[in-house]
């Protein structure tokens, strides 16, 4: 875990400017340590506004160049300020943080993404492809424009099987990612990694309950410290006996075994 001022080596709009997607590449020692599914806590300004760091997944690592890539979508004040940062500027980073995905040793790896939930899955895919595994991405988005802005080309470059769905039918299957899964022929031995909105991940977990695939899900929660010290970011987990406990999304996660997560927790 490092705290460092990282220099921006690239910062660009991805696809349609309206979609608010950005690619940010930082020269960072974090590259040497980062594992798929981990994230950084980024300070988007040097002042007090905004006060807190922003959690962003590590979407790419180049160990040789000591570079990490972050992909993000403009959301509120923090990401909008981040978008102002120029090449050559320095951003304060804390990372790599959390526990990421397990990279399977063999079998097929199914990646299930909802919207920008694809970002943290990218390094996992790269790692799995490097290992020679069969990798398949099932990705749901709003429309064709979304995929063009959200880095579909980065996935295509991996040469893996890609299934997409759009709500408006402008690309792939019309519907959501579940509609892809429902029509998909799965391998016998496989592992699943999912990231997207909570309801979508809950549904995906449900979908795979009938299989004996290990399903890992990457959760999101508002963060304070990012290192497990403040208990701001918890999720609810249950063991096989149904006993509830809290998990810290920043430290115990963001990746959890999907079957341990209490998906509809309002407690």
């Amino acid at each position, binding site marked *: *875990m490092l*705290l460092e001022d990282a220099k921006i080596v690239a910062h660009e709009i991805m696809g349609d400017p309206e979609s608010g997607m950005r690619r940010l590449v930082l020269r960072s020692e974090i590259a040497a340590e980062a594992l798929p599914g981990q994230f950084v806590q980024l300070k988007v300004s040097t002042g007090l*506004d905004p006060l*807190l760091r922003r959690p962003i997944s590590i979407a790419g690592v180049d160990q040789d160049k000591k570079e990490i890539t972050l992909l993000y979508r403009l959301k509120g004040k923090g990401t909008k300020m981040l978008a102002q940062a120029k090449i050559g500027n320095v951003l*304060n980073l804390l990372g790599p943080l959390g526990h990421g995905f397990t990279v399977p040793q063999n079998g097929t790896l199914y990646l299930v993404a909802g919207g920008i939930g694809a970002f943290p899955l990218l390094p996992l895919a790269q790692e799995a492809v490097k290992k020679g595994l069969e990798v398949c991405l099932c990705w749901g988005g709003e429309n064709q424009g979304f995929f063009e802005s959200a880095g579909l080309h980065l996935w295509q470059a991996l040469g893996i099987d890609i299934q997409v769905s759009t709500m408006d039918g402008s690309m792939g299957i019309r519907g959501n990612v579940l509609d892809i899964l429902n029509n998909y022929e799965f391998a016998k031995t496989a592992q699943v990694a999912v990231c997207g909105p909570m309801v979508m991940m809950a549904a995906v977990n449900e979908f795979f309950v009938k299989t004996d695939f290990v399903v890992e899900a990457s959760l999101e929660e508002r963060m*304070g410290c990012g*290192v497990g*010290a*403040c208990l*701001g970011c918890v999720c609810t987990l249950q063991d096989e006996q149904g006993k509830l406990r809290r998990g810290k999304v920043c430290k115990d996660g963001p990746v959890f075994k999907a079957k341990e997560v209490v998906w509809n927790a309002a407690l």
Partner: protein
Amino acid sequence: MQPSKSALKTVNTEVKLGPLTLRNPVITASGTYGFGEEYAPLCPVERLGGITLKGITPEPRLGNPVPRLAETPSGLLNSVGLENPGLKEFMTTYLPKVRKLPTAAIANISGFCVEDYIHMARSLRKESGLAAIEVNISCPNVKHGGMHFGTDPASAEQVIAAVKAETDLPVIAKLSPNVTSIVAMAQAAARGGADIISLINTLLGMSIDIEKQRPVLANVMGGLSGPAVRPVAVRMVWEVAQAVGIPIIGMGGILSWEDAVEFLLAGASAVSIGTGNFVNPLAPLRVIEGIEEYCLRHGVSAVSELTGLAWKEN
């Protein structure tokens, strides 16, 4: 107006808060530093004056649902709701590691009736290896219709006296700022026998998600911390320091050494950093270094001399 550089080469950073001696005046605040391990890879524990541990209760608690955090202008609302492993688990799983921390470890205890506090204080004595107990009285007293211990002087006095009777460790009374008179609360803590007063805990606040038309925090209200509250905290330290003769640990919005010096000059003997750690995990270190340099520049040979300088004749 810059005072001329003095010949001073070193500064005595040790501070004595009644029975509690710290190697320097910079502590980390309860609930923001876990049980002392999380930030260790980033900020060397042996450089800290002390660590205040996450608040514990007699029984384990899952705390409040999420969202538990909301960012506000220069501030942070939290409604963690005292999630903690409970006293027993703390003693068996956490304390052995806490004892090994190379700094003063301060337990923080919360309860919902006087008996809760008594129960915990009995287990937390000198042999535990802890340096002190901080008594968080910002909780509703469930046996008295939810009236907060932290807003009623008589209850506060009673709790502090009860804890004091059970433990031989220094007792720190941690006060809530959500009161009409912080001096009255501090005096009550003093009557109860508190060795040290720590202020401030968080200000009660909330924020609303205008698109969802619902509070951001699942718990509706939460505690406001961070730089936004610093003027209130400094004012309370200033008031209490002049009214009550007990050493003070000042906190609320400290990010930089300048902020910390403000608290010391207002009358604190030590400071605590909470939300500031989230912004800069090296904040405690930078604060310690900055206070030392400030002392050198001002020809002050011991950090303890800064306490109350803004109101003392000098």
